[in-house]
Structures are given as C-alpha cells and as structure tokens.
C-alpha cells in the first residue's frame, strides 16, 4: 500500500508566534559537553537584500558525534544536556544567531566518518518548500575527504563552510539566489 505525499506549502510571513520561543536559539546549556560556538549570519535574497522573515532550524550531533535519536546506535555517549535542535527567525536585517557546541563527526555512506557538520533547514515567505543545507567548520582537517563536500563543485564549496569571525564565533550567511548562492541539497 502506498499513500501519496502531502505537498509542501510556504511557511508564510506570520509563523513567529506559533513556532518561535525565546531560548530556542541556544542549543547548549552551561552543562553541555563540547566546544562552545556561536553561529551568526544573514539570509539574503537575489538582490542581496536581507530576508527578515526566514525561519532557520538546526539539527546536529553532540560533541562526541552522536545524535539524540533511537536510530543512532553508535557506542558514543549521549549528553543529557544536549538535544541537538535549535530554531531562530531572522530579524529586520536578516540576521540570525545560534549558541551551540561543535558537533563531533558522524558516520556517512559506507560507514566512513563525515566531517563535522550541522544540518540546516530554511523556511520563508516565498519559499514554497524547505531549503536544506549544511554548515561545515573552517580549518577542519576532515573537510578535504568529506564525501558530501566533494560532491559539490569546488567553486561553490566555500558556501558550505562557516567563516571564523572572532574567537568562538562563526559566520554563516545563507544566500538564496545569485552570486555566491549557498549550496542547497536535495534530501
């Protein structure tokens, strides 16, 4: 028996009161194990204008590289102080900010470790379905051999790697269209 999928529709401009709560942009608490990072960036449209009504969601493994999910059966420790999900809406200047920890590497296709990354969903007015991307880390030795990064044209790969802005702070802009358009994935 096969049922047909329910179609996607835009999140529209009025999602905030339902979907957003203060604190959802902080994935880590004081007790969370791992290297603390702040990720900030802007969402920009094809005119390089800020997108002030985007919803960004993060999903990531903990500092050891384990997802808090029953299908992740790796023998790595779960962290009771880290669930791995975060949510933030962009502000008037298209900015968003998350406080989290750097995830450890998780296995990928063929059980080969992937470079550390954070999974990102982007929803907005004008996006009829979600955009999906990944945030990779600058100066990370595992990036060079990462299957997913290597599946992307070299000229566009840099859009997936956050930039070191200042100590503990990474910058990751999401460009929906145009020059330096972020690489989005078909998931």
């Amino acid at each position, binding site marked *: *028996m*096969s*049922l*047909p*999928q*329910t*179609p*996607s*529709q*835009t*999140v*529209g401009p*009025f*999602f905030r*009161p*339902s*979907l957003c709560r203060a604190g959802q942009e902080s994935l880590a608490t004081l007790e969370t194990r791992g290297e603390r990072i702040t990720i900030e960036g802007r969402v920009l*449209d*094809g005119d390089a*204008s800020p997108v002030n*009504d985007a919803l960004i*969601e993060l*999903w990531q*493994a903990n500092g050891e590289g384990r*997802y*808090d*999910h029953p*299908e992740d*059966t790796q023998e790595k420790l779960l962290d009771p102080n880290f669930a*791995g*999900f975060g949510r933030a809406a962009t502000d008037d200047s298209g900015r968003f900010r998350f406080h989290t920890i750097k995830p450890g590497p*998780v*296995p*990928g296709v*063929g*059980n080969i470790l*992937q470079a550390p990354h954070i999974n990102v*969903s982007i*929803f*907005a*007015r*004008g*996006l*009829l*379905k*979600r*955009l*999906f991307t990944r945030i990779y880390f600058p100066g990370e030795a595992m990036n060079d051999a990462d299957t*997913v990064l290597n*599946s992307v044209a070299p000229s566009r790969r840099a859009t997936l790697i956050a930039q070191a802005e200042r100590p503990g702070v990474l910058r990751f802009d999401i460009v*929906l*269209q*145009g020059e330096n*358009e*972020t*690489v*989005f*994935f*078909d*998931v």
Partner: protein
Amino acid sequence: MNTPAGYRRETQGAHPQYDHPPYASTHKRSPRHAPVRLEHTLSEITGPRFAPESVAPADADLTHFDGGAALGERIIVTGRVLDEDARAIPRTLIEIWQANAAGRYAHDEDRHDAPLDPHFSGIGKVITDEHGAYRFMTVKPGAYPWRNHHNAWRPNHIHFSLFGPSFATRLITQMYFPGDPLLAIDPIFNSVPDRTARERLIAAFEIEVTVPEYALGYRFDFVLRGRNVTPTQS
C-alpha cells in the same frame, strides 16, 4: 554500525518548484542552481523529538484565549499522520497557526484592516497519539487580502508544521477548506503541479467528526515520506 536505510525522495509533481512566477515572492528567493543530491546518512534519518509533556491539552484548543471565547464559527480539525506505507507516525509534534475569523493574524506585521480578537491567539500544538492521530478545536479562519497581485486574496487556510521521525521528513504546509472559490485562483495553492496532489491539501467535511450543537468537523490526514527498504544486514 550499518548504513541505515534512507527516506524516499519527493514525489515528482507532488510538491511546488521553488520558482513559481505567479507567487511574486519566489522571484528573488528561489535558488537558481539545482539542489545537490545528498545520500541519506545518520544526519538525515535522525531528527528532533519532543516530549509529550511539552504540550498541554489546552494547546489543542484555540477556541478560548485570555479568559474568553474566540469569535467565529467553531470547527474541529482531526486526522492522522502517516507515512507512504500507511504506517502511523506516533508522538510527533504538530504546530499550527492561522488568521482569526475576520482574516487577521495576531502578528505585528499583519496590517490588514480587520479586527483582532482578544480571545484568539491563532496558535496551537499537539503531539500525535500512538495511532498518529491528532485533534484541534479552533474557529474557521477568514480569507484575507495580500499584495501579490491586484485584488489578491488568500483562501481560508490553516498553517501546519510537522516533523515526523527524521530531519528528512520535516514538512510545513497549509490546509484548505472544501468549496472555497478562492482556491482556483490562489498562486500558493496552485504552486503544487499535480491537480490530485493539490487537492490533498483540502480537508474533508465529515458529519462523523462534527459534534452536535458544538462545531463542524473536518478531517485532514498527512502523509510524510516513507522509508526505503532496509538494506540487508551484512
């Protein structure tokens, strides 16, 4: 650990394209590059889970807010969340938001000159039960104008956000009402290419769901992406 089975891909024609010219906001927000295909790994087959305790029974009842009853026609919206193999998706979070009966959202950016209702927040959430079932009580949202084109009006609709078991199954969509004359000319509804697929976004009126002397009942089921066949254990 073995490479886990991934989720099925989007069905062709069942979902909008990013660039949909009749919907003006897609023009500068739709990527020009084709998305890069990503084989599913642990990153995509896992996803956030939400504790049933994080949702209160009152969160499913939008008919009362701040000590009073919302204005408008009360309705019940109920259904199940399933995957493509008709398996129930239990304990998954559903969040909703909608305009009030006059067609106005309780949101700072909504400038439509229709009254706010102090007793209607327009937001709700539930977690599906062990059969994947959910039920909201609310009021029927009004139609409202938007500035997409001359004399543009959105049909009555409720926004739904669902997670399902993984990051791959995440879905945000809108539920519409049967017989709405605006559906035929709404660029967002009509962004879904296949007619039969878009009609799946229209709830069904059901007398069995209707509660005597209280509210009309609508049924709306969700089908999230199903699982590929599990690879044989090596």
